Structures are given as structure tokens and as C-alpha cells.
């Protein structure tokens, strides 16, 4: 493992480490490998051909031809991977800039509506406030959509940044509940949090873990039957903390259960009950849990409800 780390720090390979390309796809590494291969091939062809023929000219010719073939094939492969690396680099840069440029006007919009709503420029009437709320809500949705799309792009490039630290799962769940409380209230859903204080810390990324909770709880609220309860609980299971989010909502049709974690997938039930949604939430949630070396699964029965489970390793 240490040897690998040193290799990855080597300047020739740094480009690949920064763009999270594996060693076997790294042009720098392949180039060195190709060189070594060529040397080995030259020596062995020399040895073999000296046994087959006594003419030194023919031996030299065979050796040269064989190493030339290896070199040409190798160069083509290395070049291919080099293009891949460049494309990846450009994509990363695009995400970085796009996330900045797309979100800047949205920030302006958000702050301007905040300023109007707080009454800093004169108190808005109740009706004006209602419309400002629409602006704010749509702005929020747009921002979430952009953030989700950016996350999906990062996931697909195998580069979802996670800062793993020991964190308290109960605190994260409580924060998530604060985030979703307005939605729960609007939909007549009671949220029950049943997590003991004494659970060991988990090893996860605070922001991402909170996203997992808010996504799952929001789904439970959105696909409810107009009222109901959502139970959020956690328990220790071996080296993991297992969390469950259980609702008594519309459930997921059996035939569509296998697609639930796919990108852009939304079940018939979901479309019927709640048209707002992109089908990205569970895809992102699963990617976060996978990157976190955890596991996610669910049980669901149509018209009875759904329970999502996930487990995350305990910090050691």
C-alpha cells in the first residue's frame, strides 16, 4: 500500500492522482511500463533468436522488429489514455466553472428576494410576501437541481469528494429534521426520531451524510398519503450503525423496485403523487453510501409504506 502511495506521488503520475484515474489507465505509468516491457522483450527475443539461428544479422533484425511492434502498439494505447486524461481534466474544469457561473445569478436572485422579504426596503404586503415566497421557493428548487446535476457528474467521473471524519449520527439526523420540518408540516407528517445518545461515532462526511438523511426523509414525506408518520431510528450492528427511515406512504410498485436507484428513474407511484422531482435523489444517496463503504437497501409494499435502511461504518 505504501509503495503504491509513493508511486502515486511521483510527478509523472500526479496528473492521474489529481484526476482520480487509476494507475492502469495513467499515461505516465503506462509509458514507463512500456519501456520496461520493451527492454524485456528485446533481451528475450535476442536469447531466443540466438538459439534458432547463428547469423547475428538475423538475430538483430528479429529483435528490432519485435521491439518496434511492441513500441508502436504501446504508443497507440498510451496516446488513447492520454486523450482520456485530457478529456477528464477538461470535464473537471468545466464542472468547477459551471458550478460557479450557474449559481452566481441564482445567488443574486436569492439574496435580492431575501432583502425584499426581510423588509429592509419597506415591509412587503401579505400578498407581495406570498409572491416573494414563490420566487424564493423556485430559486431554491433550481439551486437544488443544479447541485444535484453537478453531484451526478462528479459521481459518474468517480470523483465525489468525501471528507471522512468521526461524526455523531444523532446530530446529523437532527439537523436533517430541521431542514425538512417545513415540508413535513405542510404535508401533515409527524417525524419521530428514535436514536439513542450512546451510539458510537460513524466515519462519514457530515454534509453528505446529512444529504442522505434529508433525501430519504423528504421522499418519505413526499410520497405519503396526505398524512402519516415517518420513523427515523438507528442502532449498532457489529462494526456499522444501521439507520432506518420508515413511512406508511404509497410504497413502490414491486415491478419497479429494481430500478429505484437508477438515475432519472421515477416510479409510476412517484409520478402520480408528486410531480416535482428529478429522479436523482436516490442515485446520489446510493453513490454517497457506496463511497462511504456502506450499504443501502429497502423494503416496500404498495399502499402500505416503505422502509429504507442504510449502514455506515463506525469510526475506529
Amino acid at each position, binding site marked *: 500500500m505504501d509503495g503504491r502511495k509513493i508511486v502515486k506521488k511521483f510527478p509523472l503520475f500526479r496528473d492521474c492522482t489529481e484526476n482520480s484515474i487509476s494507475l492502469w489507465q495513467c499515461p505516465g505509468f503506462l509509458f514507463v511500463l512500456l519501456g520496461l516491457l520493451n527492454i524485456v522483450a528485446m533481451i528475450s527475443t535476442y536469447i531466443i533468436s540466438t538459439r534458432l539461428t547463428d547469423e547475428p544479422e538475423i538475430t538483430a533484425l528479429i529483435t528490432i522488429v519485435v521491439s518496434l511492434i511492441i513500441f508502436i502498439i504501446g504508443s497507440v494505447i498510451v496516446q488513447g489514455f492520454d486523450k482520456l486524461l485530457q478529456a477528464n481534466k477538461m470535464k473537471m474544469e468545466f464542472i468547477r466553472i459551471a458550478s460557479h457561473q450557474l449559481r452566481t445569478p441564482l445567488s443574486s436572485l436569492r439574496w435580492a428576494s431575501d*432583502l425584499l422579504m426581510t423588509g*429592509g426596503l419597506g415591509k412587503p404586503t401579505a400578498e407581495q410576501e406570498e409572491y416573494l415566497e414563490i420566487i424564493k421557493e423556485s430559486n431554491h428548487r433550481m439551486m437544488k437541481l443544479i447541485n444535484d446535476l453537478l453531484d451526478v457528474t462528479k459521481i459518474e467521473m468517480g470523483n465525489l469528494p468525501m471528507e471522512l471524519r468521526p461524526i455523531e449520527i444523532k446530530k446529523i439526523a437532527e439537523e436533517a429534521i430541521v431542514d425538512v420540518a417545513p415540508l413535513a408540516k405542510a404535508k401533515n407528517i409527524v417525524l419521530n426520531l428514535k436514536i439513542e445518545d450512546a451510539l458510537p461515532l460513524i466515519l462519514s462526511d457530515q454534509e453528505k451524510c446529512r444529504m442522505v438523511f434529508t433525501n430519504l426523509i423528504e421522499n418519505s414525506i413526499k410520497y405519503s398519503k396526505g398524512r402519516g408518520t415517518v420513523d427515523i431510528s438507528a442502532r449498532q450492528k457489529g462494526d456499522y450503525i444501521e439507520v432506518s427511515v420508515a413511512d406508511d406512504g404509497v410504497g413502490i410498485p414491486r415491478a419497479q423496485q429494481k430500478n429505484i436507484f437508477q438515475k432519472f428513474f421515477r416510479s409510476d407511484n412517484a409520478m402520480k403523487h408528486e410531480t416535482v422531482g428529478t429522479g436523482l435523489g436516490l442515485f446520489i444517496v446510493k453513490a454517497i453510501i457506496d463511497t462511504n463503504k456502506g450499504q443501502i437497501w429497502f423494503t416496500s409494499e404498495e399502499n402500505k409504506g416503505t422502509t429504507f435502511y442504510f449502514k455506515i461504518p463506525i469510526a475506529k
Partner: protein
Amino acid sequence: MSKLILFIEDEPTLQKTLGRALEQEGYEVQSALDGQSGLSLVRRIKPDLILLDLILPKMDGFAVLKELKKDDNTKGIPVIILTNLESPQDIEKVLSEGATNYLVKANYELNDVVKKIKELV
């Protein structure tokens, strides 16, 4: 005397909204639209706090921060990075180079930004 805040940001609408909110809190706010003029304005007006975007014309926020922290006259001024870049590398880079705080614009309501600023000046 009211505290002076310099806002280096190339988006005029953001300047205007946050500027207005800060003025309501009793701050004096000056702004610059690019890194170069921001830097020379810092040297002239000696603000109590600098709000700095990272993607800026002429000279980006990373370079402005570096210049500010190199100069004995300006290195004591707290700098809040106010941007929509949010990769861990960017955050780590500016914090290690002496920025006081890092706020991702998209994640904060106006009031929360004002609150963070009030914590410093």
C-alpha cells in the same frame, strides 16, 4: 465611526444586495469589480474587512489573497472568501493561505452572510 468593508466581486447585483444589507447594519461598504482594482483599493482605504470572490477578472481571488498576505500593511485585515467554488482543494488552499473564513454563496441566505460578517467586525 462605522467599520469599513471592501467587497471585491465582479457580479454587480450581488454587490448591490449584500452592500445594501450591510449598510442597513451600519457598515460602510466600498466595492471593486476586479482583482487588480480591489487590491489597490485595499492599499488606499485600509478596510476593516475584505469580502473576496475567487473568480475575478484581471487578477483572480487566489492571487489577490496572496498579495494581501505578503504585504505587512494588509496582512492583518481579515478576509472572508465569498464564492461559488466549493471543491475541497480550493477551500483548503485559501484557508491555508490565510483567509479567515470561506462561504459558498449558494449555500447561504443573505442574513446568514451578514451574521458571519458581524462575528468578525
